[in-house]
């Protein structure tokens, strides 16, 4: 048992990060290969200035008209994505584990703060799930896999929350927590989660076209 725990909390973490990291690189290489083969013109139209103009405009809450049309969804989505990074990265237990293994250390939230923020993440996911069922235009677009994605994202947070409060089966919850976190990390490059690194590029291309060719805003 101890060696299994040691494996999933030690080497497996690094393996997952490597798969994530090399997966992303692989996806990028594939994308650039495809661009070079068929759409070399993309480089011609890509403009650094307008790419960043578009990306930054879309990072400012409620600047894009679209964000003002669905304020509730946007606010929740914005906060969710922010916390999705912040909470795991700045969780005291994670920071400690990393400090103890490689002597790097950085800012960590108080446990009570992380606890509340985790609840925010879980409720955001529930909101997304309900939205997929309740809002007709979203329901029409929703596939079963969309719920699986929500589940995969939710699992590490739910198990982490339960484990922190030590409600039951502590050891199993931690194991589930670690494994589900690693699963999500591994899946990012190869599934729709890849919007994490692809979205800036699609945004940048549209931003470039709108900016340098069409002389118009795209938000």
């Amino acid at each position: 048992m101890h060696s299994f725990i040691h494996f999933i909390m030690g080497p497996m973490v690094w393996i997952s990060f490597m798969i994530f990291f090399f997966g992303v690189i692989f996806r990028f290489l594939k994308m650039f290969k495809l661009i070079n083969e068929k759409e070399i013109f993309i480089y011609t139209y890509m403009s650094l200035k307008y790419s960043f103009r578009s990306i930054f405009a879309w990072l400012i809450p409620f600047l894009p008209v679209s964000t003002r049309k669905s304020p509730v969804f946007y606010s929740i989505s914005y906060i969710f994505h922010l916390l999705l990074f912040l909470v795991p990265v700045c969780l005291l237990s994670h920071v400690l584990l990393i400090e103890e293994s490689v002597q790097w250390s950085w800012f960590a939230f108080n446990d009570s703060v992380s606890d509340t923020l985790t609840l925010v993440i879980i409720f955001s996911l529930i909101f997304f799930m309900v939205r997929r069922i309740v809002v007709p235009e979203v329901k029409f677009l929703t596939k079963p896999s969309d719920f699986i994605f929500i589940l995969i994202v939710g699992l590490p947070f739910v198990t982490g929350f339960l484990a922190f409060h030590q409600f039951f089966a502590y050891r199993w919850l931690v194991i589930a927590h670690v494994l589900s976190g690693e699963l999500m990390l591994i899946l990012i490059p190869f599934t729709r989660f890849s919007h994490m690194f692809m979205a800036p590029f699609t945004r940048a291309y549209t931003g470039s076209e709108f900016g340098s060719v069409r002389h118009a805003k795209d938000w």
Partner: protein
Amino acid sequence: MQDKDTLTTNAKDVIDEGVEKGLSRLTPEKISKVINQVLTKETGARFKAYVETCMRCGLCADACSIFLSNDRDPRFSPAAKVKQTILEMIKKKGKVSKLFLKDAVRIAHAECNVCKRCSMYCPFGIDIAYMMLLVRRICHKLEITPLYIQDTVNSHSATMNQMWVKEDEWIDTLQWQEEDAREEFKDLRIPLDKDGADIMYSVIAPEPKFQAGLIYQAAVIMHAAGLNWTMPSTPGWDNSNMAMFTGDFEISGRIAKAHYEAAAKLHVNKIVMGECGHAFRSVYDVGNRWIGWTMPPVKLVHAIDFYHDLLTSGRIKIKEKYKKTVTLHDPCNVSRGRGLHEKAREIVNILCESFIEMTPNREHNYCCGAGGGVINCGPPWKNTRMVNNREKKEQLERTGAKVLIAPCHNCHSGLEDIIEYYGVEMEVKFFGDIIYEVMEKEIYQKRRLK
């Protein structure tokens, strides 16, 4: 609810002979061959990224006036159109039924104006118009393009203009307008093929066909402004391009090329085009790319830009401002497509006394509902188009203006249809109409220059 169902069944019941006959010719092998050829050979990283990155969040829905016009029927949201067409083709590896294709033609040709408004509402900037044009490309290769728009493409292909205008007809029309305009200006000319002129003026084929008065007005404006201009007598004078909207990129490229070549032959400095949006998109943004030009090889000036220059430089002077309250429709292809909306507003304020803004406006304006080749699909699709334009009608009504300025031919015709169909009390005008009405009819003298 019942209304909604009848509407959609109506749309499904539309009989378009081009589509029907095309479908009857198809075999399952041909269908899957063509679809796979387009999907694998003609798409690349962009398409892959769009398909794989969309999170199906549905935010694009609110961008689409057709979705809004259909009581937010989920089938009309931009992403839903992708789901019902190209995603299904990918999923089934091209093995789709004729019934599916009939729906795909309807969705891509009649229920999307390829106005690109949705790419401004998608957080990832996914270009759904591009994917709808890809569906149209497939339809073109399967030869199931709607009849009327296919006819305009055939005309392009045979005559290099959209309306089967013959060469002598074209020259005759120009001379006829020149003759008429001489009653206002003694020495007015519509110079044909004048080598080394500053400006080549180009129009879309419907102008000589049935709106010759617009050429008259343009000639008067050119003459009064004292410009060195010309029009080509040979093919290449028509800047319109319906092939761009049917996915017939080969012909689309030929049309744009003929246009640039006409300008090159005449050694002009720039092409000034009449008030047309899709034509501008063709020669400024799309056609040039197909024939290998990052940006157009000749300087292209849209009428809005041109009039703005004439009015602010004082080449055209205003006698008296236009009295009626006006509102302005921003054509997608020159606002979202070229950012000319601010200049358009400045022109309105120079020309007119009272101006009411339409909301949404500028880059966010709704399409007229006719754009993207939708109006060109002709009579079979007119009723469904009118239903899909309800949101636009409401937008027009909210302004309460008497006159609607639409600096685009497509928009002009589409908006007139809406006004007639819904009984909106409004008059649609071009900028040219108003300038012609309020301008000083005297020839500009270079007084300020020594």
